[in-house]
């Protein structure tokens, strides 16, 4: 990649501006830019940084910090950094002292928080194209005995701050341009979560007041309150309501005075001023929206309505927990239960789309709603567009790639609704939550994790290895794919079979203590195997606990190559013992005709068969050879079986296999030449031996006798075959068009059923037509005899 691009950084930047992909296509061009920045020096033992780190503005020109007491704003300016590209020998950056001061210079230091307030450590928003900073400060929480503590709050277990102030600070010189204060309430300020900035509109959600304050940040450096909604949706709502309440109270008092009112009405009049009966503001809009939706649903309105009224109480007590702008007029609110301290992805909550221009709710979803999920996945940039300070940063998706992977702790894969909840937990989004500064990219720089909060860190693209476990044989075949995703359920190509499955099967092969492990030294050399002769790996036996570490390790080399549609695996030990196996691709890999790309596929159901074959046919011999070379006891196998069991097993074998087995080793010869095995074979093949043969048990005589008779029979057969193949005189009268199927058929006879005639007739005709040797045809008749036998 680097070779094709100019090394000059300015050229690269210009090329990026001019020729990079259209916005929205890919984020890779952005990443590529600073992935090619390489650290040129390592600084260790740097001095402790006393200020509270807050954030880098933009690409890192300014570093925003707060002093230790959280009263002052400290802004550092970056002095620039030398760039050296890999392979760029000419760019010699000026050597500099590796101190903080030599890279960052204090730009200014300003007192921002006054009095009892202190700045919030991790709250900082950048507005108007990095011209302004919005900071927040607050007092310590009030105790519940305090006089100013709001008694009528709907939310109980959230602290109350006497005052919270938002400061608008010009970044250039640190002038505090404007302030906005909210008293006796709580705003979730950490990590910008309770506040949302969209272009120049700032939404602040107060938890106790259940109100959203909308401020506009003017370019001149002022914050103007535009709107407030929550308990009331329009500015004059409060007036109307108070007028109404006043009229109501007048009416009630006049009723009470004019006549002897029933006692219960007096009671209700007394209860009225508590004001709990009226459903107002957003809650009322939600209920109206839900009611109308159910009412218009034509199929079974009464049923839907009944369910609506059943959960009316739950809907009426919902509380706003977070707010996000979707565009300038629509906001996304998340609403949950009162007693939760915040909205969690694993609990149920609702997402409400509210249009502040028309004052209406336009959408109401729960957090398992798949329709909303579809919208979110389709329009992710729309949901996150406003939460970024840089336009390109919106392509950094906060949605982790590993969402569909199960939790490594829990064995159960996620259910559908869990996945939906996890994804929808990303909305409402947090403003400017994703750090876009390259300084915090862990791939480039390492830094002290304790100084920088986890939410600020650049999220990398993690690629997790996928694990595959065969469903039918969970223990037998198990392997991981590191990079190539193979779905074992239906498919994998021959190359993947070669490189992955075989390696993994070799690794996973476990014969008790006998395991092949990849030789570490060779593994590194193995990086670039010559492509023509396949791959080569070296294995050694795994060291056992009792082994001396200095013991000689005998390595074995395993090579594999695809060769003419089959995979050949062969291994050799140092002393030249070889074992090889050839796996024909057609046995395991099937082309699927239905699919468009007719790539060969491996089907999972064959995997255990393949595993068995590799293990018994290839790995076992190699293991035994290795054990022999290292002087270890080989794994248990046939020779350890007691003789009676060996005999039982060998009973299933044919004579030829038995005879071959007898040649293998001395102890096997004793077993395999036993008359217990050979006598039935001899009887079946040649009939019962006469006592005249003098076969004595216990001497292997039966085997010898079988061998001798077999040899004799073979000799005779060969002789007969030779006679049959000797040239004969042509038949009288056979023309070239006549096909003579056999020598003993009547000359000239074609077709018909003459060959079904009984044997005596055949003999007669044979003498007539079959040349000078007469009976020569009978030699050949042997294979056809059963047919005649049946007829006669």
């Amino acid at each position, binding site marked *: 990649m680097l070779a094709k691009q100019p090394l000059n950084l300015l050229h690269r930047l210009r090329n990026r501006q001019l020729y990079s992909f259209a916005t929205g296509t890919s984020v890779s061009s952005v990443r590529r830019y600073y992935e090619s920045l390489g650290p040129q020096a390592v600084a260790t033992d740097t001095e402790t940084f006393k200020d509270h780190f807050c954030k880098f503005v933009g690409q890192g020109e300014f570093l925003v910090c707060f002093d230790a007491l959280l009263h002052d704003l400290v802004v550092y300016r970056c002095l620039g950094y030398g760039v050296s590209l890999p392979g760029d020998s000419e760019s010699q950056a000026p050597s500099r002292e590796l101190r903080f001061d030599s890279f960052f210079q204090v730009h200014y230091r300003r007192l921002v928080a006054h009095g009892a307030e202190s700045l919030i450590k991790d709250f900082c928003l950048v507005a108007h194209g990095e011209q302004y900073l919005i900071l927040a400060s607050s007092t310590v929480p009030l105790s519940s005995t305090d006089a100013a503590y709001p008694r009528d709050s709907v939310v109980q277990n959230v602290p109350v701050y006497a005052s919270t102030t938002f400061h608008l600070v010009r970044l250039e010189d640190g002038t505090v341009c404007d302030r906005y204060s909210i008293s006796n309430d709580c705003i979730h300020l950490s990590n910008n979560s309770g506040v949302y900035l969209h272009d120049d509109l700032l939404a602040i959600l107060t938890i106790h007041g259940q109100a959203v304050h909308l401020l506009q940040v003017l370019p001149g450096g002022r914050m103007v309150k535009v709107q407030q909604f929550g308990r009331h949706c329009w500015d004059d709502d409060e007036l109307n309501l108070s007028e109404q309440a006043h009229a109501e109270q007048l009416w009630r008092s006049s009723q009470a005075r004019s006549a002897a009112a029933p006692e219960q009405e007096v009671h209700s009049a007394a209860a009225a001023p508590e004001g709990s009966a009226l459903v107002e503001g957003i809650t009322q809009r939600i209920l109206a929206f839900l009611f109308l939706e159910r009412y218009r649903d034509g199929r079974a309105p009464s049923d839907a309505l009944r369910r609506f009224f059943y959960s009316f109480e739950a809907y009426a007590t919902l509380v706003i927990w977070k707010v996000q702008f979707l565009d300038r007029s629509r906001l996304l609110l998340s609403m949950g239960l009162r007693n939760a301290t915040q909205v969690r992805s694993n609990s149920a909550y609702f997402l409400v789309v509210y249009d502040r221009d028309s004052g209406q709710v336009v959408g109401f979803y729960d957090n398992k709603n798949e329709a909303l999920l579809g919208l979110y996945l389709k329009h992710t940039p729309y949901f996150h567009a406003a939460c970024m300070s840089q336009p390109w940063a919106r392509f950094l998706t906060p949605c982790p790639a590993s969402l569909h992977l199960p939790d490594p702790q829990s064995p159960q894969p996620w259910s559908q609704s869990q996945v939906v909840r996890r994804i929808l937990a990303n909305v409402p989004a947090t403003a400017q939550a994703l750090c876009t500064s390259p300084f915090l990219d862990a791939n480039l720089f390492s830094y002290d994790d304790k100084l920088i909060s986890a939410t600020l860190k650049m999220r990398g693209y993690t690629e997790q290895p996928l694990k595959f476990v065969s469903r039918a044989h969970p223990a037998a075949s198990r392997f991981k794919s590191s990079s190539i995703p193979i779905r074992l359920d239906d498919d994998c190509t021959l190359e993947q079979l070669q490189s992955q499955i075989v390696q993994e099967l070799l690794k996973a092969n476990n014969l008790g203590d006998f395991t092949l492990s990849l030789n570490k030294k060779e593994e590194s050399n193995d990086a670039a195997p010559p492509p023509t002769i396949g791959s080569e790996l070296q294995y050694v036996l795994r060291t056992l606990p009792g082994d001396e570490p200095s013991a000689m390790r005998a390595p074995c080399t395993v090579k594999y190559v695809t060769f003419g549609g089959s995979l050949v695996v062969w291994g050799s030990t140092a002393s030249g013992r070889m074992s090889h196996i050839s796996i024909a691709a057609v046995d395991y890999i099937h082309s699927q005709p239905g699919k468009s790309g007719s790539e060969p596929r491996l089907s999972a159901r064959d995997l255990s068969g393949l595993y068995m074959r590799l293990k018994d046919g290839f790995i076992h011999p190699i293991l035994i050879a290795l054990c022999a070379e290292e002087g270890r006891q080989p794994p*248990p196998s*046939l020779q350890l*079986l007691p003789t009676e069991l060996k005999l039982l097993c060998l009973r299933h074998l044919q*004579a030829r*296999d*038995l005879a*071959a087995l007898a040649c*293998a080793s001395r102890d096997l010869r004793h077993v395999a030449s036993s008359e217990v095995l050979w006598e039935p074979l001899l009887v079946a093949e040649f009939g019962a031996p006469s006592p005249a043969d003098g076969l004595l048990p216990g001497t292997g005589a039966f085997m010898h006798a079988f061998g001798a008779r077999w*040899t004799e029979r073979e000799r005779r057969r060969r002789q007969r075959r030779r006679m049959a193949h000797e040239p004969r005189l042509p038949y009288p009268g056979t023309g070239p068009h006549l096909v003579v199927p056999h020598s003993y058929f009547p000359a000239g006879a074609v077709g018909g059923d003459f060959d079904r005639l009984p044997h005596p007739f055949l003999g007669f005709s044979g003498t007539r037509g079959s040349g000078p040797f007469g009976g020569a045809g009978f030699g050949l008749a042997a294979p056809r005899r059963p047919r005649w036998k049946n007829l006669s």
Partner: protein
Amino acid sequence: MRSIILRSCDGADHVVAQEAACLSKTVQSLLEELEESTLVVPLPNVCDCTLRKVLQYCTQHTALQRRVTDISDELRTREMEAWDKRYIMVSTDELYHLVMAAHYLNVPGLLELCCEGIANLIRGKSPEHVRQCFGLVKNFEAPEEENIRRTNLWALVDEKEQAKK
């Protein structure tokens, strides 16, 4: 049907129906010897995973035996054979343990099946190949080997032909 508990040498318990467990003649005779009330049968010669595999065989075969009514004899035999074929697809050392267990527990059908499996491993292999596969050493003396090879030359034709090539 009564259930009994079979305890392997490493102390793992397997609950199994008595009918299935009595496919093993050893267990059957042990049950007869022990008192009526005994439920736990210790099997000190069989390890846990092998016992599990053996019991898999026993339960499957009893289940198939019991299904007399719904399928014909021929079909049942065929089904059982197919199952056996899949069952015996294990690696060499597993097979070794299995045959030992089947011998000790005296399950005739399983023993037969295992022996067939081992025979399948040997079938069609040349002596050299057999040695390689089972880790044997050629411990013949030269005249001895010549003798046995001459006797069994008839069976080694394939090998001779291969050597010629």
